[in-house]
């Protein structure tokens, strides 16, 4: 029960004689755990994408046999034509995998683990073994969720938001085991997140290198820290709700059983009380990493560092009091709706501040459009659309026609794909050399960016128009409705673009795998950045530093007049710099 992290003998850094199993499988090294999360979540990103392609086939070409659909079992498709029950399972599992097993672990599992100790300057997480447990519990959760695809009735059919009573009653949804497995997997995932979060929070508070004051933390660390707090406090609520849902199906409890006094809206309140902080868990780390990359690419200090920090904290706080905006049409008291509208409108302000500060950072900069920078600027351009479309649904009267339509689908994808995923393409490329010691291919990275940008917009922008026309989400066959008939051409166009978008991701996949073995060997500091992680060799050794460096300044001192080059690392001591007071004990 002692904390080895702060007293880890530095000798590890050079003589790593641990066995393969201890080094790469049951590793307690935060960097290996981050890489394990990377492979796990990229796998689920692929799974989620494959599910989406099948949905798009059905929507673009309703009731026509899907190419290759013949291999699907009879319970999913007849002669390659998808069945309606399978379609809603696709909807459910696409959302579940993408939110809980792809984007969330990609942002938090990968980068909180990999970046926090490296960027704040410490040997490892505060609790390395708990950290390892966090990964393996997440792995187990993913395995359980995946296994639900292959049980007799298939996975849950209630949408990723799992609205009760549909989710609570197998006689109404037609799925029992798959639904129970969903609950079990989500409870496990909650446990994993809590274990991770308590590590991130403790590490950031207590284990920063001497001189790494709160306002010298990179914005990526600030956002991951606030994200960890959100995860710590939001996930247990989801776990509690998941437990009640599971008990309703296994022990015969009546939490969501309206025939015995249970309440249908109770699930929605619990789910969205978790769910809105969750939305910011899915975007804050992206914002933080984009801030780091844009400052680097612009060779300029981040514009308004303090207001960026306050915006992150403000979003973190406000995210707890906006959940009702998912429930304007649910029959919740309309006066509550008014309250939630106001809080929701206000949460747009810190996001706006961040966007303008990114623009301010680019202004009068010296812009180097390497692949991470391209993706980071792409993030800003796309996140703006997702943020602004949020204003429509925040306004309660306008939400009435667009709630539960493709307008919402467009909005969430502009934020999670156009936002989080573009940031991730940037972040993966940016920290790839520190993870694997090689660079990803620059040319193919650029081709991937431009093609993704093109097809992403072709897929998701027209969805706004579908939503304005009233096109409902989660419907298997739009041709049932006369008023949707004129939109079928748009649906087909979106589907074709989506197939192209999926194919284009192959470029990224190939680049990622190819570069692992054949990528150009990377310098220790290939992006000429200021962060502490770049003071380490590639890939960063176990235990990171023999002696933790002292920190003399913030992370964004690019183009500093006193520096000979256009960057000035945090650990480099200039003649006038004072040794931090907390470094006194460092000579051990």
């Amino acid at each position, binding site marked *: 029960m002692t904390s080895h992290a702060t007293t880890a003998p530095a000798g590890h850094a050079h003589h790593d004689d641990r066995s393969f199993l201890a080094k790469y499988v049951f590793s307690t090294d935060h960097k290996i755990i981050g890489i394990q999360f990377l492979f796990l979540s990229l796998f689920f990103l692929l799974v989620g994408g494959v599910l989406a392609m099948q949905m798009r086939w059905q929507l673009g070409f309703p009731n026509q046999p899907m190419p290759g659909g013949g291999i699907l079992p009879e319970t999913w498709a007849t002669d390659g034509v998808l069945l309606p029950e399978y379609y809603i399972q696709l909807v459910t599992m696409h959302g579940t995998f993408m939110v809980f097993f792809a984007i969330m672990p990609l942002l938090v599992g990968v980068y909180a683990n990999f970046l926090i100790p490296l960027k704040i300057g410490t040997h490892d997480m505060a609790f390395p073994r708990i950290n390892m447990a966090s990964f393996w519990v997440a792995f187990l959760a993913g395995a359980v969720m995946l296994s639900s695809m292959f049980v007799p009735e298939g996975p849950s059919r209630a949408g990723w938001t799992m609205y009760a009573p549909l989710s609570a009653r197998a006689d109404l949804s037609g799925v029992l085991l798959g639904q129970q497995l969903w609950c079990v997997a989500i409870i496990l995932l909650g446990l994993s997140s809590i274990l991770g979060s308590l590590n991130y929070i403790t590490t950031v508070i207590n284990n*920063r290198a001497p001189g790494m004051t709160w306002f010298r933390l990179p914005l990526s660390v600030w956002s991951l820290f606030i994200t960890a707090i959100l995860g710590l406090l939001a996930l247990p609520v989801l776990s509690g709700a998941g437990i009640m849902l599971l008990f309703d199906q296994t022990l015969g409890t009546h939490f969501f059983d309206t025939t015995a006094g249970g309440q249908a809206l109770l699930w929605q309140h619990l789910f969205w009380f978790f769910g809105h902080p969750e939305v910011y868990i899915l975007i804050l780390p992206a914002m933080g990493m984009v801030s780091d990359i844009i400052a680097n690419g612009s060779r300029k200090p981040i514009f308004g560092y303090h207001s960026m920090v306050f915006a992150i904290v403000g979003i973190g706080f406000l995210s707890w009091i906006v959940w009702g905006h998912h429930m304007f049409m649910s029959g919740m008291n309309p006066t509550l709706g008014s309250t939630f509208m106001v809080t929701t409108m206000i949460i747009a302000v810190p996001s706006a501040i961040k966007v303008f500060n990114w623009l301010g950072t680019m202004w009068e900069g010296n812009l180097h459009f390497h692949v991470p920078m391209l993706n980071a600027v792409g993030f800003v351009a796309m996140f703006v659309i997702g943020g602004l479309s949020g204003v429509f649904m925040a306004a309660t009267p306008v939400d009435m026609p667009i709630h539960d339509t493709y307008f919402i689908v467009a909005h969430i994808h502009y934020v999670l794909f156009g936002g989080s995923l573009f940031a991730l393409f940037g972040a993966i490329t940016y920290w790839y050399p520190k993870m694997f010691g090689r660079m990803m291919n620059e040319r193919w990275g650029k081709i991937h960016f431009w093609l993704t940008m093109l097809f992403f917009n072709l897929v998701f922008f027209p969805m706004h128009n579908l939503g304005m026309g009233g096109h409902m989400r989660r419907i298997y066959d739009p041709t049932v409705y006369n008023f949707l008939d004129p939109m079928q051409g748009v649906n087909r166009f979106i589907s074709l673009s989506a197939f192209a978008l999926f194919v284009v991701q192959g470029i990224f996949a190939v680049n990622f795998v190819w570069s692992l073995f054949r990528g150009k060997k990377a310098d220790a500091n290939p992006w000429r950045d200021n962060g502490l992680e770049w003071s380490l060799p590639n890939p960063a050794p176990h235990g990171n530093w023999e002696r933790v460096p002292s920190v003399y300044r913030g992370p964004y001192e690019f183009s500093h007049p006193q520096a000979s080059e256009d960057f000035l690392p945090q650990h480099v001591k200039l003649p006038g710099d004072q040794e931090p007071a907390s470094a006194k004990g460092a000579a051990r």
Partner: protein
Amino acid sequence: MTHATMDMMHPPVPAEPGVQAYNLKLGMWVFLASEVMFFTGLIGSYVVLRFGVTEWARPGVVLNIPITALNTFLLICSSVSMVKAYAAIADGDQKGLRLWFLLTILGGAAFVGVQVYEYLHLVHIGFVPSGVREGSELAERVAGGAAPAATMGLYGSTFYTMTGFHGFHVTCGVVSMIYLYIRKVLPGKYTQQDYRGVEVVGLYWHFVDLVWIILFTIVYLI
């Protein structure tokens, strides 16, 4: 550099000052924040459900209040003995630590034992998570108007979920304390300079105790 020469009860050096707590203690506080949210979710749901219906079984009709009151007292006593164990080792008193730590374990184990007995008894008379078992003793009493039949399902759902998860937390605490007792307390690994494990498990224990006092009040007494 060995642990013995360092003051382990303070934050790690060298590092920028964080909070005045060592990692394990800070980690436990952070974890307890998450636990607060977990129980808030369960208790909040109970409040919403209970006030969403017009009638509810009166206190004492189904549950045995005196026995659980005694059990509550037992748990509070174990919190006191935990404080005594902590005070003993802070003074370097190994004998005191062994005694009071053991009493805490026994108090916790007894609490779980009484709760298991309570559950068995309740199931026996027909009170189950789904409500009232048909044909049972309790079913007859409910039919006789002792408690409102319409909301007994919710009563069972919330009672077993809340007290069950609390009992699970107590059990986890007892198991961890037994582990620490065998691995650390008996061999005398805790010293006046480093007794972090005692302090941290103590934090958890007081939290579990506090949750129980809330649950006892709202589930049994109101």
